[in-house]
């Protein structure tokens, strides 16, 4: 089981901000395909330029295993201040 968080415009596109996926897919890329499977707009937004992922609150690059992972966040380009 993995908790999935969407931030910023990704949450607006999807119409949800948090969701539990159970069982967790084996990898981050599989999770991304799964949550985008029935939502082509979200799938496109997740593949957009500058979207980053955090796996258990650590920024990840490329694909990673979700073994024992509790939380995955998909984050569009960041802008504070």
């Amino acid at each position, binding site marked *: 089981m993995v908790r999935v*968080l969407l*931030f*910023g*415009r990704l949450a*607006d596109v999807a119409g949800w901000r948090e969701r539990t996926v159970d069982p967790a897919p084996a990898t981050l890329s599989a999770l991304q395909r799964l949550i985008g499977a029935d939502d082509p707009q979200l799938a496109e937004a997740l593949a957009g330029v*500058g979207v980053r992922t*955090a796996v258990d*609150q650590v*920024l990840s690059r490329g694909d990673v295993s979700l073994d024992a992972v509790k939380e995955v*966040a998909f*984050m*569009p*380009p*960041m*802008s*504070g*201040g």
Partner: protein
Amino acid sequence: MIRLQAEPFDPGALLTAFCEGRTQTGAVVSFSGLARGEAGAVTDLELEAYPGFTEAEIGRIAAAAQARFGLDDLMVVHRIGRIAPGETIVFVATASAHRRAAFEAADHLMDYLKSRAPFWKKEHGPDGARWIEPTEQDQADAARWD
């Protein structure tokens, strides 16, 4: 001190607290980012963070800045939630023995917060809402420190 908060704050009160009791610090630089009304085109801003992760990420950049610029101390306070024009979105303060380090560190922290810290910013106005993404200038500003 690094803090996210939903309540409005007074940057001057934070500066007072930050300066208090410093007898070996020569220079304190502060930056206050205020929400602009854009002459009515923006009614308010909405700032989203990733609680826990956002503080931790700012903490990492702050620790690196403290070492890089030889700071005595620093403070970052960032609003989340709905923010009205004129309210302070972000306050950064840096303290060091000499002014150059304090200026550069505050400048650096702001460049980081603008385009690399986990915040997402939406502008609400009479014509609806839009997400703000960092501009090319913001990206170039942040890249100055890489």
